[in-house]
C-alpha cells in the first residue's frame, strides 16, 4: 500500500529523509519510531502529497504520489501531529464539508458521519463550534475526519496525542479492526508501548535513515534488547 524507493527530502542543508526504502503491505499496521526531528513526519507528508520529495519515489496503492496526487488523497485518511481545525465550523459542518469534498452522496455521507461520531464518542460535541473543543476532542475530530469515509489507508502522526486512556483503547481496537478488513495503517509514535501493542511491523528512523525494520521481536533481537524501548535507545543512542 505504501512504498518508498530511495526517498529523499532536504530542508536547505538538512537531509530530513535520506534514501529510505520501505514497503507497507495491505492489511498491515506499520509503526514509524524515531526521536524528534528524525524524519517521520516528513516521510508521512510525502506519502500524503503535502510535501514533494527531492529524490526517489513514493507510491500509495501503486500510484506514484507526484503523478496523481488527487487519487492518492482520495484513498487516504490523514491525522497530522497537531491538527488545527476550522475553528468557526461545528464538528457536524466540518465533517459535512469533508464528505462533500470527497464526493460522497449526501445521505451516505450523513450515515458515515453519524457512525463515526458514535464510534469516536463525538455525538454531543458535533453541534459545537470547534474552537470550543479541548485538545483531546480536536484529536478525536481529526481521527473522525480521517476515517469516516472508509479510506484504504491511514496515515496517523502521533495519533494518541491528547487522548485519554479510555479513548486510546478505543482507537487501538479500531485500528486492529480496520487492518483486519484490509486497511493499511502507517503511524508514527513516540510511545513504544503503543507500537508494541498494535503494530505488525516497525521501522526505527534516526537522522533521516532507516536503522531497523521488522516485527517488534525482530527489532528487539537486532538491538539485543529486552523490550522495544531499550531497543530504540540502543539503536538511536540516549542523547
Amino acid at each position, binding site marked *: 500500500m505504501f512504498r518508498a524507493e530511495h526517498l529523499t527530502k532536504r530542508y536547505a542543508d538538512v537531509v530530513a529523509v535520506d534514501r529510505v526504502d520501505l514497503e507497507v503491505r495491505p492489511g498491515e499496521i506499520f509503526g514509524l519510531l524515531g526521536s524528534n526531528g528524525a524524519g517521520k513526519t516528513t516521510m508521512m*507528508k510525502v506519502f*500524503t*502529497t*503535502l*510535501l*514533494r520529495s527531492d529524490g526517489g519515489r513514493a507510491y500509495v496503492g501503486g500510484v506514484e504520489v507526484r503523478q496523481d496526487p*488527487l*487519487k492518492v*488523497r*482520495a484513498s*487516504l485518511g*490523514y491525522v*497530522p501531529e*497537531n*491538527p*488545527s*481545525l*476550522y475553528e*468557526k*465550523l*461545528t464538528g*457536524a*459542518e466540518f465533517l*459535512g*464539508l*469533508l464528505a*462533500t*469534498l*470527497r*464526493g460522497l452522496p449526501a445521505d451516505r455521507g450523513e450515515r458515515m458521519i453519524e457512525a463515526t461520531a458514535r464510534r469516536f464518542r463525538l455525538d454531543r460535541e458535533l*453541534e*459545537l*463550534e470547534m*474552537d*470550543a473543543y479541548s485538545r483531546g476532542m480536536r484529536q478525536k475530530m481529526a481521527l473522525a*475526519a480521517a476515517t469516516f469515509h472508509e479510506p484504504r489507508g491511514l496515515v496517523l502522526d502521533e495519533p494518541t496525542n491528547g487522548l485519554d486512556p479510555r479513548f486510546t483503547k478505543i482507537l487501538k481496537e479500531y485500528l486492529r479492526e480496520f487492518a483486519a478488513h484490509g486497511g493499511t495503517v502507517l503511524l508514527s509514535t513516540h510511545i513504544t508501548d503503543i507500537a508494541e501493542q498494535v503494530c505488525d511491523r516497525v521501522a526505527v528512523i534516526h537522522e533521516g535513515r532507516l536503522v531497523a525494520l521488522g516485527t517488534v521481536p525482530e527489532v528487539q533481537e537486532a538491538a539485543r534488547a529486552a523490550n522495544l524501548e531499550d531497543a530504540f535507545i540502543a539503536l538511536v543512542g540516549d542523547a
Partner: protein
Amino acid sequence: MSFYAVYAADVVDAFRALSVRVRRRRSGVLWFALLFAGSVWIALKLVELTLTVGLPANLQVTTGTLLFAAFFGMLAKGAVDAYHRAIHPESLVFLLVQPVSRGAIAFGKFLTILWFNLAFVAAALALAVAFVASGIRVPLPWEFAASLVLAVVSGLASGFALAVLGSLSTWRRKLAGLASYAPVIGFGYASLVAANATLRDSVLVLAALTAVSLAAVIASARFLVEAWNNQTAGRRRPGKPRHYVRLADAKLEALVDLELKTMVRKRQLLLTFGTILVVGLALLGTYGVVGHPAGLPPSVAGVFYPFILAAAVYVAAATQLTVPGLAALGKELDRLWILRSLPVPGRTAYAAKTIAILLIVPVVILGVALPLPLFAGFPLAVTAFVVLVSSAACLALVALGVYAGARNPNFDPNTGGLPDSIAMYNLFLVALVVAFVVVAIPAQVYQYDFVLGILAAILAADLAAALVVFATKRAARRYDAIAA
C-alpha cells in the same frame, strides 16, 4: 520591569520575522522606501495645492480636523493590532500564567504596537521636514508635529483599550465597556474639531488624551483574561446549519460556504459591511455639508465630487477587497493539511476564496459608488459610467489582493495572515496606481464621447474580470506548491 521583558521579547520576535521577509525580498524594501517618500511628497503637494486653491466654502478642514482624523485612524489600527497581538493569540497563555501583573502584560504588548507604528510616523515626519526644507511651501510648526505624535500614541492606546473592551464575553459587557470609553473619544472630537482648537491648544488636548488613554491600556488589562478566553475558547452552538450560496459545482459550493461561514462567525463580514457603510455615509455627509462646491475655481469644482467618489471607492475596495485576498493563504497555514489531504484540486480551493471576496464587490458598489450619484442627481449616463468603472476598479483590486496574497503569503499567526507593514504599504500604493489606470483611461474616453466612454468602462470591467481569473489560477498554482 516585567512589562519591558514582554515588550522586548515581542519586538525581537516581530523584528526577526520582519528581517526574514525583508531578506527574502530586498527589492521590496527599496520600492517601499521610494513609494513611501513619494507618497509623503504627494501628500505635501496636495496640502500645498489646497492652501493655494482653497476648499469649498462650506467645508471646514482645520488642523484640529486633521489631528482628530489621525487619532481616529490610529485608533482603528491600534484595535486591529491589539486584537492580533494581545487578545487573539493562543500563545498569550504563556504570559498569563506567569507571576506578573496583567497590566505589565498589556502595557508590554501595547509598547510593541506603539514601537512599529511610531517608527512609521517618525519616518514620515522626517521626510516631511526634509521636503519642506527643500522648497515645498507647507507650514510645519513644531506644535503640529508634537500633536501628531500625541495623536498617534493616544489613538493606538485608545484602540488597544477598545479592542479589549470589545472582546468581552457578552454583548451587554461589550457595549458597557465601549460606552464607558465613548466620552474620551467625544472629548477629543469636541476639543479638536467642534471647538476649532488652535495648535497650542491641540498639544494640550492631545497630551491629556494621551495620559487618559495610556491609563486606559493599564485599566483594560483587568479584562484581558476575559477577552482572551472569549476570543480563544468560545462555546457556541450556531444552530441549524444553512447554506449561504448555491453553485453548480458541489465542491466549490461547499468551499465558498466554508469561507462565508467563517467570515460571518468571526464577524469579519459585519466589520466589512460596517466599514463600507461608514465610507458611504461619509461621502453622503460630505455632499450634505458642502452641496455645490462653491468658492473653488470652475476647473477644480468640476472634479471635486468625482475625485472624492473615486477616493472613497478606492478606500473601500483596498481595505475590503484587496486585504482579504492578501490574507487568503497566509491565514491558512495550520489548516492547510485539511484541504491538501483531500481530493480537491488547488484551483477549486482558491476559486472558492476568490468567489467569497467577489461577493463583497456588489456591496461596495451599492454602498459607496451608487448613493452619491443618486442623491446628487448625476445624469443617468454618468451614474452608469461610475458604476462600471467602480466595478472595474473593484475587480482589479480583488485580482491584485488574490495574486499578491498567494505570491508572498505571511504565515505569522500574530498577523492573521496579513503581510507585514512594508508589503501592505507597497500593495496599497500599487492598488492606487492600478485603480487610477483602470478609472482614468475610460474617463478620458468618456470626456471625448460618452458612448465610447461607457464602452471603454465595460471593456475595463471585462479586462479586470479576466485579471481575477488569471490571478486565481496563478494563486492556485502557488497554493499547490506550498509545503503544508
